[in-house]
Structure formats: structure tokens, C-alpha cells
């Protein structure tokens, strides 16, 4: 058994797991930690639904070799809620009809969070750029862009 020990912070909590060589972070999160919020849509970097934040930076977990996150801090949608309350982005997505099947939503929310954490009042173009690596096949991008702008504009309170 060539299991490799791996430790990192997962939504603020230290976790320790054993991974197989070559395992990607998406599989590690879903199958070894049980955080099902990042989704598999392609495994090719093309859809963005597996997006997570690594040390605050947006990364594609499907293209991240699990071992490379040793000692780093991972945020997923599972850690977005603020206690029992929705994060303003979650509230804004719900209020603006920014999800249909919901499969792209975890990645969209993480991409949006990566943007707002650095740039609390982005322009529309900056929002478009920030989610340009995320594909939504159902909803159409307008409601998603509007939701992110609404969250940024503080028109949505948590």
C-alpha cells in the first residue's frame, strides 16, 4: 500500500488523510474527507465546478495533485455559511435565481468569493472575468452575474 499521509486545513479544521499517488484534490475532498460540495464535471479544468480556494486563491481541485496542498488551507462551499446563516453570496444566488440544476453552483460561489475577498466592489466586467473559468449549462450567466453584483453591492444582507 503506497498510501501517502497528508495534512491540511479544510474549512478551518485540521484534517489528516492517506492518499494514493496521483490522487487529485477533488477525489481527496469528496471520497476521503466526505466534503461533497466540490463537484466533478470534467476532470479537465474546463468546467470549474470543482473550484476551491487554496490559501485564498481560486484553484481547480480536479487538476491539483492532492499532495501539493500539504500544510495549506482549503476552503470549499461547505465552509461558506456563517454559522446558521447564509453567506451574502449564497443569499444573493438564491434571491436572484442564479441556480437551476445547481451543479455549477459550488464552483460559481467559490469563484465569486475569490473575487469579493480581494475586490469587494467589482465592476460587471470584473465579475465576468472572475467566473470565466466556470461553465453553467442551465441558468445562463446573467442571473449569476447579477447575483454576484448584488452581493457585492450589499443589497443583500445575510
Amino acid at each position, binding site marked *: 500500500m503506497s498510501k501517502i499521509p497528508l495534512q491540511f486545513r479544510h474549512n478551518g479544521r485540521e484534517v489528516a488523510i492517506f492518499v494514493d499517488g496521483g490522487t487529485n484534490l477533488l477525489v481527496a475532498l469528496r471520497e476521503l474527507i466526505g466534503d461533497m460540495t466540490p463537484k466533478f464535471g470534467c476532470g479537465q479544468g474546463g468546467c470549474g465546478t470543482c473550484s476551491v480556494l487554496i490559501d485564498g486563491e481560486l484553484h481547480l481541485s480536479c487538476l491539483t495533485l492532492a499532495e501539493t496542498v500539504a500544510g495549506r488551507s482549503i476552503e470549499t462551499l461547505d465552509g461558506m455559511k456563517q454559522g446558521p446563516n447564509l453567506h451574502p453570496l449564497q443569499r444573493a444566488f438564491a434571491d436572484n435565481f442564479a441556480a*437551476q440544476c445547481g451543479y455549477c453552483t459550488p464552483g460559481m460561489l467559490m469563484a465569486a468569493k475569490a473575487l469579493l475577498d480581494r475586490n469587494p466592489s467589482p465592476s460587471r466586467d470584473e465579475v465576468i472575468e472572475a467566473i470565466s473559468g466556470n461553465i453553467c449549462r442551465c441558468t445562463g450567466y446573467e442571473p449569476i452575474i447579477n447575483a454576484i453584483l448584488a452581493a457585492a453591492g450589499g443589497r443583500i444582507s445575510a
Partner: protein
Amino acid sequence: MLELRKDIFADERDDNLKEIGKGTQRQDMLGHVTGTSSYFNDHKLQGMLHLKVVRSTQAHARIRRIDTTEAERSAGVRRIIRGTDVPVNLNTLLSLINFGKDDEPSLAVDKVRYKGEPIVAIVADSEREAFEAIARVKVDYEPLPAVFDVEEALSPGAPVVNETYPKNTFTYHEVYDHQKLRFGDADAALATADHVLEQRYQMSPIEHAPTETNGAIAAPDTNGRYVVYTSTQALFFSVDTCAKILDVPSNTFHFIGGTVGGGFGGKVDTLTEPLAILGAMLTGRPVRYVFGREEEMQFGPPRGAERIYIKDGVMRDGRIVARKIRAYFDSGAYTRLSSYAAVKCAAHLPGPYTIPNVYGDVYCVFTNRTPATAMRGFGVTAMDFAIECQMDKLAHLVNMDPMEFRILNAYRDGDMKAHRREAKNTALIECVQVAAEKAKWPLREEYKRASSRKDGGGSRAVIPPTPTDPSRARPAAAGQQRTSYDRLPPTVTREPPREPPPPAPPPPSPRPAAPSHGATRFSSVFGTRRR
């Protein structure tokens, strides 16, 4: 944002409804934004194995030999499944409603009919080990001539794609090789039309590309049953399909579906469930079979390609007097749902227009392409694309505004449709009017005043005499213009001041008063419902 035009057909609607016409939150929205909505793949099962399939590299070939000896010895391999292991290795989806013959194996045995067809399934401890074993399977093919074009597939001497249908066409009612629609005498009307425009349209296959790929997880349960988490869009349909293929009663399965990560029609074919369950049956372990993105895009069923010929006869005043259509649905190598799509397409002719003479032949054809399936706008999307392109060209030909041209020819309440049902609850005219208004497209007064509820019926409600014999070619009227369309303005001169076209005779009796509550403007292929 959303705008409801309640001024239109206001008298037919009860606005005291609690939900309809009001914004409401999706019941699954909270799950979506918190990531707790549960998709088929969000289940972590103890000891889960992974299933991958060996796919054909050939579009059409006889399989001489499948050698899995090396793959069997590959690390982590639990089970190799071949066609002979599948209890009922021949199925067609719509056999559940007695439509079509079983023509598609779960795993190919003696022949492959499209590139990407599954031949062998490998169940292994990890995906990586399944991939390694796949690389060790040797398939010896004898390539056969392949056909990728619907019309070539129908020409004499074309390779037979699917032996169940040796003419490369789906068979309707055990006899017919196409869907036929005859209403009036299109050939006679074409012969007397001022202009005849014949055009060819085609559409490529379209992949649904759902963000979640197709997949299923099957796990042995107590009492010899199996729990199946699936991405299916059609849960009960999938249950019965699996019961048939695996030759067990359907209560053997506990299917859990629900939240689908985008389907659009691409998740009705039950492609992953039967093999995942069979894998679980043969290994006694949970088995997951999920398409990779490349598999989804290349071998997941698309909306099929179509080729459409339209020949229309139009008068100088803009009335379309005849529409003749020949359409070919490319079903790919097997029947999934194109057979049924062709039926819907035929029922849709000639589009939402009242044309007194309509002639349609719609074929469902087999080629060596990926089997095609349902997609939103099932059966009518490509046809509508063709018809609406044709409408623009016809308007141009008779020097009419394209919006007004559509209003002129639109069906109205009381008109007879080509499939011999009275048109009810029509609303094309109002749609065009609103579209014109939104686009700031000027419409002349009489077209603004047109209504779906006026001027329909009467002579427009008559079923015309329809010849059943193969009609002889008729000589064209002297002075008829036959057009192969080019983008230049038409050169023929016509009466310049455009009179409003003669309205069809008024309906013989006033339209019955509409009921006072909602849900009346709904009609389907199967007839019109009024509550």
C-alpha cells in the same frame, strides 16, 4: 426581468391564482447554494469499485476476437464483463411502450456499429486500475464500410448499419419506412403558385453537455435488492429498462434519483445503470460507472443530425399555398428516441402556419454515428430552424416584411391543422406582435390589429380533398417563378402598393366563449385539453 403580458388573452385567465403568475422560490434552491443538494455521485460507499468500458475504435466493424487475458491479470481488476454476461443483451428504450424492436446490445458482441460503442466493461478497485486494464484489452476488428450520411444510408447498396433494420430506416407499424403527412394536394398547389422556393437545410448533432456527466452507483442491498443512485432524468423508465436488460423483476431495484446535474434530454438513455448494477451483482460490491467528460461529449447521445428539404409555393400577396417537406433524422447506429422524434416532427408540420396543402415525409435513418436521443424541443427544433429560415426567404421573395409575413400566414383559432385537428388557443400572432414591439420593429396598423382569435375557421377549417395515390408531376403554371434563393433582392416586379391580403372568410359561427379560469391554452400532439 420577467414580464408577464397579462393584457393578452386577459379574459381567458383567472388572476386570482395563488402561485401562477407570481414569483416563487425553487424548493431546491437552499440545497443548491449550500452545496447540500444530493446528486447521484455524492454517495460514499464502503468498498466501492469503479467500472470503465472498452470502447470501439471503429465506426463499423466485425469483431473477430476480444482478448481479455492480460486485462484479467492486471492489478486491481475484480471482474471483466462481456456481452455474454448481460442477461438480455439486446434492448430498445421504447420497447417499454411497445415502440420499435430491440436493436442495441449493452456490450457489443459480434459487431460494432459506431465509434465509441461499449465492448467490454472492467470493474476494478480504482479508476486508474480500470484504465490500466482497458489498455490491456485487445480487440481484433474487421473493418466494414461505414455510412455517415442519411441520404447515402438510404441509397441502394449502402452498408447495412443495424441488421434489425436492414433498410437503414426505422419501421413504423411493422410496415412503413417513414412518417407520412398528407393534407390537400401540395403538388397541384405548387403547380399554380406564383413562386416556388425549394431549399435544403441541415443541422449537426448537438451535445447536451450537462455539467454533471451521466453516471450511476449500484450497491447490493439486503434481501437481494440493489440500491441505485443515478443521474437519470427518467427514473421509472430506467428502472424498467434495467429490469428488462438484467432479467429480474423491477422491484429488485431501489432507484434513487432526484437532483440531476443538468439533463436536457441527454440522461434518459439508461446507459450507465445496467452495467453498474450488473457489476454489483457479479462482484457483490458497490460499483460506480460515471462518464468522463470526453466520453460524455464524444459518445454520450446527442440531439441527432437532421437534413430537411422544404419546397414552398407562395402567392404574390404573401399567402403560402403549399408546403412540401422531406426530412431525415439521423438516429445514429441504434434506435434510442429518434424514431419517436420523427413522429413528433411530422405532427408539427407545417409549423404554426395555416397552409391549405401540406405534404410531409419524415424518415428516421440509421448511420454509423453515435446514437441520438432526446433534447429539449424534441423532434421539432431543427425543423423549426428550417421553417423559420424558409419563412424569411419567402417574405423576401414576395417583398414582405418578415414579421408581417408570419402574421399573415399564422394559424388562428378555428383553423384546421394539417394533422386534422382544429387549432385552438393559438398565440403566434400575439407572440410576433410582442416581439416586434420589443425589437422596436414597425408593424403596419392592420398587422398590429390582427388577432389569433379573429378571422380563423370558416373556409380555413375545411379538410381539403387529399389524393392518396402517388401524385403525378404537374406542369407548372406559365409565368411561375422557381427560385433557388440568393441573397439579392428579388428582381421580378410585382404590384407595388401592397394591399392588405384578403382575410380568410370569417368563422361561420362566433367562437365559443372561453372558460373563465386558466390552463386552457394548452394543446399537444395528442390533442387539445380543456379543463
